[in-house]
């Protein structure tokens, strides 16, 4: 989880981006005959009875090859406790091909394409796996889920079928075993100067309208300042990408760095073009108001992150986009020189859709070489993968290590605590041993996903409060799957490119007031001129086809 870079976060929340992978259907069409393809010749080392809650232990010693992303912050070591303990518990030895994280994807491409890939290929972000499907080098894992009781259990228990469907290709199968989160994990929101709120006798804003009022009061008290000056405007455009993303989420549309061209209209039961919806217009209207009342700095959409940070640091603005890290690493340090200044990350303000959140609950995942299927130990391999990546014990082990050595207590009852000499990401800063560097746990290759309780065990109290507020919100279902065929994908990409440019440019014009919103209808017909209708009908056709064939 600590591997979840912004890119990862984005690809996770914006899973199915660009409509390419708006995959998914609401039934498990995974072939029930799968295990019949597996014969007794594949059962070496496998456990006869392996079900939910069982500890996997191979009946004979086995070894599997694995691609290992060596993270520069905790480079691979052969003597990690992780390796020896894993072998002790499962009778499996992993043989890593160590790849520097800087160029992991490139080597993965070469090795898979050359037919030289290790059996397990983790750390793959959807839709990267699509490049390898045609070559037949990777296993359609959805055919073998019967060998994976924990995986199936979590899909059912956490109601993840809809999320999983996003990974499906036009053939109805998926080729990537994703990390699974119990709930959508939100990190990005707004940071706000609480000392100013207190000074002006204001509450922390709960809704976007509250925020407008707060900004108005701030403006009244400091007429020469823009109370809100935002960041994350580096390409991809249109700028203020986080603000647009969370505001869009509150309105039920994709925007900012979450932008997707096709927006699911549940009442009509079809996809519509995102930037042509009323919700999108409403969102632009909101921002336009902020800009025209001089509450939001117009430079928010163009300035560099450093400039925005500078304004916040000098007290020229009081609100700015943030995530947990930026808050602690930068903003707090930046404003330390202003006496009495305090800043917090507030739960994202709610909008027309109410207290709800959207996003994918899938993490990056693992591909398995198709060669493995013919191996004598194939069943054991799948059981092993199921245990390490999907069982509660496996997830806990990969993340926190060994009870009594690296941690104490239980995650479920909240007594969990890292051992006092073990340090990790700001916990026990004086600890002499690093959980990742010295023990090999919380390694991004093995530890991601899991229950909300497991996730929360890593947060400091402040972030925990934020997480609890966000967890209390309802998680909305993801759009149904509409996977495009590879020819359609090419056509769609062409249309998307010109649409994206046009939408970005117009979005900015509407917000900044360079184009009045009274011209919305003219804008809609210009959108059609950029083939928005053809695009949407392509996606709707893919949706219908998928529903017919695999629904």
């Amino acid at each position, binding site marked *: 989880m600590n591997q979840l870079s912004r*890119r990862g976060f984005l690809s996770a929340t914006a899973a199915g981006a660009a409509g390419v992978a708006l995959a998914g259907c609401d039934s498990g069409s995974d072939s029930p005959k799968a295990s019949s393809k597996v014969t007794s010749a594949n059962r070496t080392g496998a456990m006869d009875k392996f079900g939910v809650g069982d500890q996997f232990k191979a009946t004979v010693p086995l070894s599997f090859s694995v691609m290992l992303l060596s993270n520069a*912050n905790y480079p691979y070591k052969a003597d990690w406790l992780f390796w020896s303990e894993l072998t002790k518990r499962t009778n499996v030895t992993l043989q890593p091909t160590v790849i*520097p994280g800087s160029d992991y994807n490139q080597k993965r491409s*070469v090795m898979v394409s050359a037919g030289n890939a290790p059996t397990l290929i983790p750390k793959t972000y959807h839709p990267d796996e699509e490049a390898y499907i045609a070559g037949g080098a990777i296993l359609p894992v959805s055919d073998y889920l019967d060998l994976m009781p924990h995986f199936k259990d979590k899909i059912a228990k956490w109601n993840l079928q809809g999320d999983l469907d996003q990974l499906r290709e036009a053939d109805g199968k998926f080729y990537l075993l994703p990390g699974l989160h119990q709930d959508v994990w939100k990190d990005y929101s707004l940071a706000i100067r609480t000392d100013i709120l207190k000074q002006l006798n204001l509450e922390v804003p709960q809704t976007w309208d509250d925020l407008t009022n707060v900004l108005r009061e701030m403006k009244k008290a400091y007429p020469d300042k823009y109370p809100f000056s935002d960041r994350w405007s580096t390409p991809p455009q249109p700028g203020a990408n986080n603000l647009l993303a969370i505001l869009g989420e509150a309105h039920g549309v994709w925007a900012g760095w979450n932008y997707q061209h096709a927006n699911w209209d549940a009442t009509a039961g079809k996809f519509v073009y995102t930037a042509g919806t009323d919700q999108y217009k409403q969102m632009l209207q909101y921002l336009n108001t902020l800009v025209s009342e001089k509450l939001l700095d117009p430079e928010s959409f163009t300035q560099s992150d450093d400039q925005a940070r500078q304004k916040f640091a000098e007290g020229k603005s009081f609100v700015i986009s943030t995530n*947990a*890290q930026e808050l602690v690493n930068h903003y707090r340090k930046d404003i330390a020189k202003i006496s009495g200044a305090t800043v917090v990350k507030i739960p994202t303000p709610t909008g027309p859709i109410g207290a709800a959140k959207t996003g994918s609950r899938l993490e990056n995942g693992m591909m398995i070489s198709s060669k493995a299927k013919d191996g004598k130990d194939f069943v054991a391999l799948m059981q092993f993968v199921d245990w390490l990546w999907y069982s509660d014990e496996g997830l806990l082990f990969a993340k926190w290590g060994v009870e009594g050595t690296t941690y104490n207590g239980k995650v479920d009852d909240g007594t969990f605590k890292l051992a006092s000499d073990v340090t990790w990401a*700001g916990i026990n800063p004086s600890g002499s041993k690093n959980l990742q560097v010295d023990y090999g746990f919380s390694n991004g290759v093995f530890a991601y996903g899991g229950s909300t309780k497991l996730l929360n065990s890593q947060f400091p109290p402040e972030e925990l409060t934020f997480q609890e507020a966000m967890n209390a919100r309802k998680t909305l279902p993801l759009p149904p799957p509409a996977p495009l065929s590879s020819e359609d994908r090419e056509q769609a990409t062409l249309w998307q490119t010109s649409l994206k440019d046009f939408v970005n440019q117009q979005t900015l014009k509407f917000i900044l007031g360079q184009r009045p919103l009274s011209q919305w209808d003219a804008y809609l017909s210009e959108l059609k001129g950029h083939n928005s209708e053809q695009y949407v009908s392509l996606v709707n056709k893919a949706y219908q086809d998928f529903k017919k064939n695999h629904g």
Partner: protein
Amino acid sequence: MVTLGAPRASGRAPESGTRIRTSRGHRVFQVFNAVILTGVVVVTLYPFVNIVAQSFSSESAITAGHVNVVPHGFNLTTYKKVMSDSAFWTNYRNTVLYTVVATGISMVLTTCYAYVLSKRHLKGRKVLIAIALFTMFFNGGLIPNYVLVADLGLRNSIWAIVLPNAVSVFNLLVMKAFFESLPDELEEAAAVDGLNTYGILGRIVLPLSKAVLATMVLFYAVSFWNSWFSAFLYMDRSNLFPVTVYLRNLIAGATGGADQGTASDTALQIGANIQAVTIVLTVVPILTVYPFIQRYFVSGVMLGAVKG
């Protein structure tokens, strides 16, 4: 600059009008020369000095943009972090080993190939040149190369790095041209005195070719020293990586995807100047070699070798 000395003497003898004019023109030229060349020195040296300064500066000074040519807030955190890691030294040793072995092999192969090609009476010379030139413009591509190296069983061995890139066609052609410029008479004289082909190459041609040999050694050594891609591709174990791969990964780790959670001050410091430290650490060794090789970069070894 160095070039100022000699012409000034001629300027000091202003007897005839024309000579004064040339002398003035010359002085203007010299001044221009000095100014422009000083400018060039500054332009080329400044970035490097700046990098060195950054590598010793604190994170806050770097992000605030205070660092120019002198380090601000002297800080060795990143150096300590990099140099206290045993993997760094293992990989550094690999780099030295790979560079030395690869340069040795490359020099032997390139010299032999180039010497042969420089003989105009050689039958099939054009075919041999064409074969070399062909590889300059066409190659099998990444994956076929990978499959080849893997099937030859070279993965995870030094040979995967030193063999596929052993002959650089560019260097080969430079060397061939140099050998061609050597007067045939020298070799004929040596042959008359009883030396065979290998004797001529070893005792006459090579000693006269120190300039080009030094250049080639430098070219090869620098390129092998800096290379990371073939090692990255063919090495599956981190104790076989050269230091370039190690540092590349370190940069990506420090500047790329940020870890969730609170980054320590140390991590911030490392993120701020890891690139500068990296550049200093990898450039310094090869930089120290340069002055020793440079003295061979003198032309004129051939002057007076041929009489008549």
